[in-house]
């Protein structure tokens, strides 16, 4: 029996952040995915063309989450995809993309933008409490000051800044640590929890390594580190999560360390690392793993492409995206930390082989 595609009676923002499991989570997510698929098919002609012409199930034929049509994340770098009139767009988000490639363009209307904020706030509250905290950014001010260099880093810092107050940048514009400024900030807020935010590779190179090299420490034992973005061009320096946590604890005393996984195409419904060291889907997102060659769904414990579902995207057809990230679902409703829902691991990205074609003698 096809369900109604109208908005559910209970707003999704009332859902418990990590309290939904089993059939309950599945059914709510399925209903939202049907509703969003119907919405985007009706509102976004390119989305409809792809779903219908490629033979994906339409909303009435979606019997399981695995049936939800998916777009490749890369498509947002190639096409302008909107499910609202241009006039309703209040904000356009862009991603940097890897090494000079084109950028994703994500169009937000008021409602989608508000839903992003609400969902992200709920997820953040789980690790830092409901109040804004003094915030230490492990980056330099220039990263956000120069709007012409708007990047994933800029977006991340600005996005997470709404959970902080009295923001202090720990690095100078040449990316060296400024211990005096940082210590003054920490002294000022002594005895309080501190929100610390940075990109994984920057935290490692410009905070941990820099302190080690200078044989110095910071007193951040009340710090809560939120870091994400992976290792990017510093893949050769990448360390395992355990070593990362140890390194942080050794030079800052900080033990509340949370990695997150997310992408600009599904801003808000990020996957946050718990105290047990596992990334979790919240109530508003779900992860499926697909075979990298034929895209068939894989069971927990098998490695494949990450397929992300999010209830947030209304103004653009991004509720179901096939990423180029590789990882696995480790389990569902079974984390020692007590959170319900899916826990996952990210292992890396699809390897980009050379582009073959007739004009590539000199491409390499």
């Amino acid at each position: 029996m096809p369900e109604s595609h109208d908005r559910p009676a209970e707003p999704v923002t009332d859902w418990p952040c990590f309290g939904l499991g089993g059939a309950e989570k599945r059914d709510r997510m399925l209903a939202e995915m049907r509703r969003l698929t119907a919405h985007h098919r009706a509102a976004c002609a390119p989305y409809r063309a792809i779903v219908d012409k490629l033979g994906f199930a339409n909303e009435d034929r979606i019997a399981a989450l695995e049936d939800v049509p998916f777009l490749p994340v890369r498509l947002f770098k190639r096409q302008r995809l909107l499910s609202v009139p241009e006039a309703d767009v209040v904000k356009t988000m862009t991603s940097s993309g890897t090494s000079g490639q084109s950028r994703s363009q994500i169009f937000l209307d008021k409602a989608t933008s508000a839903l992003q904020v609400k969902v992200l706030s709920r997820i953040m509250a789980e690790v830092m409490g409901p109040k804004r905290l003094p915030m230490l950014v492990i980056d330099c001010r220039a990263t956000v000051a120069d709007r012409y260099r708007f990047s994933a880093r800029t977006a991340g810092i600005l996005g997470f800044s709404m959970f902080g107050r009295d923001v202090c940048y720990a690095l100078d514009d040449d990316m060296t640590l400024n211990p005096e400024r940082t210590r003054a900030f920490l002294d000022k807020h002594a005895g309080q929890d501190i929100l610390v935010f940075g990109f994984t590779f920057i935290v490692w190179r410009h905070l941990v390594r820099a302190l080690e090299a200078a044989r110095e420490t910071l007193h951040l034992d009340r710090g809560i580190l939120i870091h994400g973005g992976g290792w990017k061009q510093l893949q050769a320096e990448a360390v395992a999560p355990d070593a990362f946590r140890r390194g942080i604890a050794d030079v800052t005393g900080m033990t509340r360390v949370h990695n997150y996984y997310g992408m600009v195409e599904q801003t808000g419904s990020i996957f946050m690392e718990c105290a047990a060291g596992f990334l979790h889907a919240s109530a508003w997102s779900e992860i499926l793993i697909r075979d990298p060659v034929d895209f068939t769904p894989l069971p927990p414990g098998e490695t494949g492409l990450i397929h992300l579902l999010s209830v947030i995207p209304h103004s653009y057809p991004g509720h179901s995206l096939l990423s180029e990230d590789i990882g696995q679902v480790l389990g569902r409703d079974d984390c020692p930390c007590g959170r319900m829902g899916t826990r996952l691991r990210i292992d890396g990205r699809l390897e980009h082989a050379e582009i073959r074609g007739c004009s590539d003698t000199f491409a390499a």
Partner: protein
Amino acid sequence: MIPLPPDIALAQQVVLGDPARLTNRPAPVWDPARMALLADLSRTLLAMPAARALPDVVTFAYWARAAHLKALSREAAHPDPPRVGLGLVFHICPSNVPVNVAFSMAFGLLAGNTGVLRLPSADSPTITALVDGLAAVLARPEHAALAEALLLVRYARNDAVNAVWSARADGRVVWGGDATVQHMRGFPMPPRAREVSFPDRYSLCSLKAEAVLALDDAGLEALCGQLYADVYIMEQAACSSPQLIAWVGDAETVTQAQARLWPAFAAHVKGRHPLAPIRAMDKFVAACDSALAEDVRAVHRHGNTLYRVDLAGLRPEQESCRGYAGTLHEVVLDSLDALAPIVTDRYQTLTTFGHPRDDLARFVTAHGLRGIDRVVPVGQALDMGVIWDGYDIIGSLSRVIDIR
């Protein structure tokens, strides 16, 4: 000996051969010593397990065996008056079809030239196998004299090296498409020098629907094998790989023929063709892109093995419409003649199945087509001949001596 400035000598990595020994003295075309070298290379490659595992290398090895070279030399249209090579030929080899390194080298040698080959900068199992095989063969005493006729080099994009070899070349062979051909035109060669270049081309396949329907199961399987060779061995990256399937027949017959052929073909490909994950993603992204065009009625997906882009009709710029790694565009036509208006000088190979020979001959001659240099049966799209891309390559890389 061809003197090189020291900085150039440093900028290039010599993979095989010795720049100090290189000659620009021509040899006669179809020189027995050079045919023997290639035949020996063929035997050597076929005996190397690493080479035998590579379909493209095996294809070259079969092409270069002694009996086949002998047959080619007999067919060649230049027995008399005598022909000799130009001297030194500089080859820019393609990375999209690595095995063409071997064909380019063989054409140059058989035309009587010394070859300086710039290998693709990206390494590939194909190049490794070819270089290993060639090194083994050249090390044998009977081929020692030919060491001065071959130099394999590799260098990162470097116009100084391009300029130096071009200035010393009597001929240049440029693979790699429009951009590379244009780029190389910027490096002057001596006034007498010639160039054989391979810009971007577009190739297609025409299937006669009633002939496909008339096949028995064995015949259908054979057709699948032939299409597989054309489409998947080079993942449609070669200029002669078909991009478009032009069905000829009435709509109903074509629908039946499609229902018969494509599931069988997808089953044939699955398990044979190892699709790299990044290719699967590229292919899926391209399929989504193509669905946005109004004249695309559907993108039929046989898993990720085979995508078929169903076009409502031929496009005016059909040649810009390519697929990779098993994405075929498909169109239904009343007759071959319907293709004529779209054929430009970009069109290279037409592979065919089920068309009477007379229809084909009439089609390629009656319309004043500016393109289509090859019409071959399905399964032979990638078969490299000494006539290629409209060139008699051996003839183009040699000169005639007029003796009266």
